[in-house]
């Protein structure tokens, strides 16, 4: 009896204390919760994951950035810039915006730009985030006045267009913070304290828990005006299923996670009937290829590669897993339709249509014949022959192993045995070159990523080496002529360096109950710079627009407040169940 009374009292105490401490809700303005994957560091110069860059993109500003369409560059910190020829040298002059402020109130000046570029140049092996084209042939960085910087390049500099693209990857950092050893003792180290992450972007870092979340707060003095969203919390998530459930549940507003194929269908079923969940679909830049290992025979034989190409109905295989609208046929010329004028789009079925008879013919001609009658071909000197196909990268969810099995089946039809390796140590094997053929995904960010197939590029793990290709690339990087890009892509297609599989079309959900003005950027897919800002392109200085923005935010408040009270209820139920758990054994104890 006594015990019972005590435990009841305890329970009541617990419950009342919880009720008395309602969760602090985001009553002030719009608060959005977004999901990203795990990142290693938030250092704007050493960051190497797309997840950290998605966050950094809100905190730091480059000199030039991609516009909303994702295909053209536009001004950011640099109001305008121009290229000039001075003898053999190329001079790039940036004219900075005036009155742009760092989050601590100091002004952004040409000194900061010079400091950032020279810091990058001092250790490009550690500062892997910015594009190395920025320092290719860079002779000197001159500060002309407080708002003007000049960069002097020699002839080895990239074409103007490519330099502009390269500068979109360089976040300018504040000299006064980065030179202060008390704040940043080592500029190559992983940064994860708000006082280290001072930028000049639309949001400032308010709070970080590494591995858990980053909380960003709107920066009032942002040069394009205060963002519409007041708080953005980026939470770390590793599981796609959790992401789906959390968006459907309203715990997340959006995130850097994609669905495609059957996953997308399942998700659509899950949220069907919820008008607050919208889905954004876009063609991704990434391309998935079936690569050959040029360092091994017979994969270094063009005829053999062609035979494999003829033996595979790629569009059929891809459709089986992605449906008719889940992926675009890949281009034998590497760059997909995303790259506009640089792309020479050559779907595999156009260049090497499915023709198993032709494949068999070529294999016969090469001497691959079934000597011992087991249904599989042997090598010309009568030894058993087997292709070792590498498929599964860790964390990969692009059906690559299923597609690998399908490829094995079609190759069996022409008499070739394939061993599909689905083990997780993909990257180690890929790097070591211990594979015959591999399904590999590439994400070219810019046309100059065609460099991956030049002879001495470390990214060229397939071992393709072609003198014309190298020379043409050199010229292409210098001139930026799209016709040369087409020529490069033709060389790749003619040599069957890989068999193009597909460009996935990805979809990502977002909720519109707390925020409506999502502005997806095709380059970043959903969490682009423009999202969360509202529309910075509309004039922000006029009072009328400000008024309208305040009315919209006030109209949003009721919905957000109702959702927070709901959350509060959840907050009660959990601990209440917990208290029950604790009390139960006490009550059940022997009298």
């Amino acid at each position: 009896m006594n015990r019972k009374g005590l435990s009841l009292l305890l329970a009541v105490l617990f419950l009342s204390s919880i009720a008395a401490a309602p969760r602090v809700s985001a009553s002030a303005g719009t608060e959005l919760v977004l999901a990203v994957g795990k990142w290693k560091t938030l250092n704007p110069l050493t960051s190497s994951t797309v997840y950290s860059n998605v966050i950094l993109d809100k905190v730091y500003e480059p000199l030039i950035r991609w516009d909303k369409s994702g295909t053209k560059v536009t001004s950011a910190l640099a109001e305008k810039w121009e290229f000039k020829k001075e003898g053999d040298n190329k001079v790039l002059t940036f004219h900075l915006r005036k009155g742009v402020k760092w989050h601590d109130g100091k002004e952004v000046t040409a000194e900061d730009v010079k400091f950032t570029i020279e810091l990058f140049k001092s250790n490009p092996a550690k500062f892997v985030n910015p594009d190395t084209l920025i320092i290719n042939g860079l002779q000197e960085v001159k500060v002309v006045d407080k708002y003007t910087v000049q960069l002097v390049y020699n002839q080895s500099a990239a074409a103007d267009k490519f330099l502009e693209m390269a500068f979109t990857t360089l976040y300018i950092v504040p000299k006064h913070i980065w030179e202060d050893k008390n704040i940043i003792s080592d500029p190559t180290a992983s940064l994860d304290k708000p006082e280290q992450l001072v930028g000049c972007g639309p949001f400032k870092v308010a709070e970080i828990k590494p591995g858990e979340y980053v909380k960003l707060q709107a920066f009032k003095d942002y040069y394009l005006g205060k963002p519409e969203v007041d708080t953005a919390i980026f939470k770390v998530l590793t599981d796609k299923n959790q992401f789906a459930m959390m968006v459907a549940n309203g715990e997340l507003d959006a995130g850097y996670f994609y669905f495609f194929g059957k996953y997308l269908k399942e998700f659509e079923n899950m949220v069907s009937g919820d008008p607050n969940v919208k889905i954004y679909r876009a063609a991704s830049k990434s391309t998935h290829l079936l690569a050959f290992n040029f360092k091994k025979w017979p994969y270094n034989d063009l005829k053999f590669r062609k035979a494999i190409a003829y033996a595979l109905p790629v569009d059929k295989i891809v459709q089986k897993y992605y449906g008719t609208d889940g992926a675009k046929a890949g281009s034998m010329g590497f760059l997909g339709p995303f790259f506009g004028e640089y792309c020479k789009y050559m779907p595999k079925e156009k260049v090497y249509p499915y023709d198993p008879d032709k494949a068999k013919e070529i294999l016969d001609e090469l001497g691959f014949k079934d000597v011992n009658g087991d249904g599989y071909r042997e090598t010309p000197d009568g030894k058993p022959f087997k292709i070792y196909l590498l498929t599964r990268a860790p964390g990969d969810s692009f059906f690559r192993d299923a597609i690998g099995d399908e490829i094995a089946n079609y190759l069996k039809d022409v008499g070739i045995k394939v061993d599909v390796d689905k083990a997780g140590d993909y990257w180690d094997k890929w790097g070591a070159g211990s594979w015959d053929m591999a399904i590999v995904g590439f994400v070219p960010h810019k046309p100059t990523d065609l460099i991956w197939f030049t002879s001495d590029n470390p990214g060229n793990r397939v071992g393709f080496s072609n003198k014309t290709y190298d020379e043409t690339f050199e010229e292409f990087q210098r001139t930026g002529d799209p016709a040369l890009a087409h020529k490069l892509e033709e060389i790749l297609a003619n040599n069957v360096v890989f068999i193009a599989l597909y460009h996935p079309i990805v979809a990502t959900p977002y909720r519109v109950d707390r925020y409506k003005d999502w502005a997806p950027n095709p380059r970043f897919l959903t969490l682009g710079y423009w999202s969360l800002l509202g529309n910075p392109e509309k004039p922000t200085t006029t009072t009328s627009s400000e008024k309208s923005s305040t009315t919209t935010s006030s109209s949003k408040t009721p919905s957000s407040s109702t959702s927070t009270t709901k959350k509060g209820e959840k907050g009660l139920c959990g601990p209440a169940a917990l208290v029950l758990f604790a009390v139960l054994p006490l009550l059940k104890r022997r009298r």
Partner: protein
Amino acid sequence: MARGMVSYTLAKIAHRLLTLIFVILIIYTLLRLAPGTPFDQYLYQGKITEAQYEALLKEWGYRDSFLVGAAKMLYGMATFSLFKMKSPVYNKPIIDLISVRLPYTLSLVTAAYFFGAMLGMILGLYCARNRGTLKESAIIWITLGIRSLPVFWLGMVLLYVFAFKLGLFPFLTSSELHPRNVFHHMIDWLWHSLLPIIALSKIYAVSYLLTIRNMVSEEYTNDYVVSFRAMGLREDYIIERYVLRSIMPPIITMMAIDLGFLFGGAVVTETVFNYPGMGTLIYTAIWNKDYPVVLASFYIIAVAVILAITIAEITYAYLDPRIRRG
């Protein structure tokens, strides 16, 4: 007698130190045998050149010969300077990485451990006392069923039912952004961690339940229990006073080993619930070939396990002189 105790303890400690060195050497060998380095991805993406890559490998000790590398690590462990070494992946001292994660892991795993072990022991005793009844077989069948559920699956189901369908618990285990006070913070922590605690405690509960039940059942068949019962002693008294005492040493060992492993976290549970603990740190460090972090983490685990076992052994050598004499 005291002398026997001292020499016994010293011998044990020397033995344990050897074990520790051996464990670390095995882990280091395995790491060295695995291919790859943290900088491979930069190289494959063409972000750095071969020369820069080689320079990085040299700088971070990936080009050290096996012996030099092992000696460096062992020296670091002996002087504890290992924890001040930097991780090549994060470019940050290891102590910074571990000190952030250890509290999370310890709070989660300790809670699961005590909850699971208590539940398992109580149910195990209950089963042993009700041998052959329908209740017992029901509990055993359910236990065996639960035992065969993989933790990641159980975690997903818990999340689906309690977080998604019922909305009782949050998905992410990161705690409240603005805790009001300590009490509020604690409640909030429990609310966020209860699902992973349940998923993880399953492992402990099941193993303790089955072990205790089997041991007590076996002990029950001894003659002394029968004679005590014939003497008219209460069943509770027999268990508390005699049966439990005689089965305690193996249970203590079992608990000690589990206690040591608490420092390693729970990789699967942490991954399913997105828990930023030691388990995920070790897991990603192994993937990234982050030698210093892997070794430092395993060092902590090994030391903890060995310490726990040693303390357990010394404790019952003190309790039971027969063990001391060997």
